[in-house]
């Protein structure tokens, strides 16, 4: 079966390469397959500059990869025909980070919902269109009569972001790419938006790529997690394995830095780094911050090792494990699907 959306060995380099300077690689050799048979939520986490937003833009076709391809139903986004492009725009929806910037302030929020209906659904009856809008708003827990006819400035950030989720689900997409959907809204409202996303996955079978820097919410709603550092995947796999027991030193640092809302659990001291070594262009990108740097880390960056059936880590600490291929992410996530049935049996 052809995957709905696939990133195949995608790299993105911004700007030009100047001699003597590191290349500004935003994303390096990234492969991921999103199929629709097993709807799931995959979290992509990393700090600013790790390439997570670049990944979102590549998957949406808003950026063209420098090398590699993003494929929609087997066709490269570079050369999609008109009808395929139309279908792609319908099947792959997005929720952006900032609910304050995505609306045109001159229109009521109805406009944001009407445009996709007009473009993608051939519905003539005004009543029917309104019914669809109302259903979508109700599906994200909003009361349509409090929303329709209002201008964006009359609504809270949480309401605006939920309308964006409603807009995304109007078209019954197969995939929603959510780029930091809750980082701009208040804590008390985040749970609602995250709950909406989870509900879309469970009830409509929509796969979600949840891009965030917030490990706690990633842990809460996703099944798989991909940790990016400086454009490369450093660790990936089953979120229930990765978060409680991170393997890559960067993931460990990340998880130890999360402030726990528990006065008894203090920030653990940051491990001191190994003596800094001059890192070459091929070195592991984390080498100059890593407490475990070895000479070989400087010479050549480690590949992704398959440390467990359902997880990968790019670190020489795990060089006993087999090296994973370019489709390693899917293998690790796929193993998870196979294991799912067995797991629920065991639980019962």
């Amino acid at each position: 079966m052809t995957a709905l959306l696939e990133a195949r060995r995608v790299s993105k380099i911004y700007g030009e390469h100047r001699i003597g300077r590191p290349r500004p690689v935003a994303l390096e050799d990234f492969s991921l397959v999103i199929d629709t048979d097993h709807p799931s939520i995959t979290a992509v986490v990393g700090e600013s500059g790790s390439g997570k937003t670049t990944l979102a833009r590549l998957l949406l076709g808003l950026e063209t990869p420098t090398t590699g391809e993003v494929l929609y139903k087997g066709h490269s986004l570079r050369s999609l025909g008109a009808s395929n492009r139309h279908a792609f725009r319908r099947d792959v929806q997005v929720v952006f980070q900032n609910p304050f910037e995505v609306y045109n302030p001159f229109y009521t929020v109805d406009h944001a919902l009407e445009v996709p209906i007009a473009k993608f659904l051939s519905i003539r009856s005004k009543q029917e269109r309104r019914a669809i809008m109302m259903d979508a708003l109700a599906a994200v827990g909003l009361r349509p009569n409090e929303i329709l006819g209002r201008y964006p400035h009359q609504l809270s950030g949480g309401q605006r972001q939920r309308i964006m989720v409603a807009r995304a689900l109007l078209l019954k997409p197969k995939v929603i790419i959510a780029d930091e959907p809750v980082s701009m809204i208040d804590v008390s409202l985040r749970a609602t938006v995250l709950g909406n996303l989870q509900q879309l996955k469970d009830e409509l079978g929509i796969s979600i790529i949840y891009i965030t820097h917030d490990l706690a919410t990633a842990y809460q709603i996703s099944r798989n997690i991909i940790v990016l550092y400086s454009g490369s995947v450093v660790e990936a796999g089953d979120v229930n394995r990765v978060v409680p027991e991170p393997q890559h030193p960067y993931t460990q640092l990340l998880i130890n830095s999360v402030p726990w809302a528990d006065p008894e659990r203090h920030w653990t001291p940051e491990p001191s780094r190994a003596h800094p070594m001059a890192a070459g262009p091929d070195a592991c990108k984390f080498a100059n911050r890593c407490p475990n740097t070895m000479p070989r880390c400087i010479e050549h960056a480690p590949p992704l090792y398959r440390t467990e059936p359902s997880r990968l880590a790019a670190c020489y600490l795990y060089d006993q494990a087999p090296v994973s291929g370019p489709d390693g992410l899917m293998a690790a996530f796929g193993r998870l699907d196979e294991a799912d049935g067995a797991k629920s049996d065991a639980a019962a």
Partner: protein
Amino acid sequence: MTAPILQVRDLRVQYRTPRGVVQAVDGLSFDLYPGERLGLVGESGSGKTTAALSLLRLIKPPGHIVGGKVVLDGQDLLALPEEGMRHVRLAQIALVPQGAMSSLNPVLLIREQILDGLRDHETGLSSRAQTARVNELLAGVGLEPAVAGMYPHQLSGGMKQRVCIAIAISLRPKVIIADEPTSALDVVVQRRVMETLGKAQEEIGAAVILVGHDMGLMAQFVNRIGIMYAGQLMELSPMKPMFQKPLHPYARALIENTPSLAVKAIPRSIDGSMPSLMELPSGCLFHPRCSYALAACTTERQTLREVRAERRVACWRAEDIAAGAPANAGAATAAGALSPDAAPEKIGLNA
């Protein structure tokens, strides 16, 4: 007990807008003790930043401080003439601003920005003494002396925020107000910045007011927490007891809402949203969202009062809650992520 370094009494701040007067801070009172770390927590619109900036008299029109006292070391800052206040700012009470990204001047060297305040308050520093001070301040926040010769765009977000801390502590103030100092930073950098702030504060013996919304950060940094809602303090308690047993229903909701790596579940959200400051509800401001509300809560507002030792709560039911009273049956707040009347059980789209 030592005398408080800062006493805030009945502070009132209004924004006068064409559509009416907004009471952004309504009768805020608290004491801050030397060396203490106090957290001021609330959602956006709760008045926490307005309150913090009012302590420095940095509120600009249409905002106005309309009443109250801010007594710093025996001196009422609100009674000072503007020139007198200029001498107090930075020297005695300093600000670490929100969004370090945009609070440094992009066309001045870091050295000049650190010296700006120093020169104003301590005239006659020799050029050598100035360089020594800059290097010492940078070292105090873990930055290399070379940073002095750089422009803000050459620094990362975390480095910029540490420069802001260096500026804030440059005159060894008695009180540092840190307004969401790490809001745009990643967790790893956030931890370093908070550790830097804590170290610098301990070194000069200042008290800190940390303004923010992240209960996790509060648990890691402060000794005492004040929870604000719609311009008022709802609970003011030492941090540990607050986390163990919040006595105000809003404090409780905030703490239970904090996402955690310990439990894999989406936390509950507080139903409803903060009232518009233009149309405040009658009685207790939180009662429309409260799962403990009684009839009395809808008509009469409880003031902040001492319920347990060192714990002040503005809630009629604080004693009941302390004794373990359950929430009202069928309370809307306990409904989980989606309010049942708004969300149909199944998403059905007839496209």
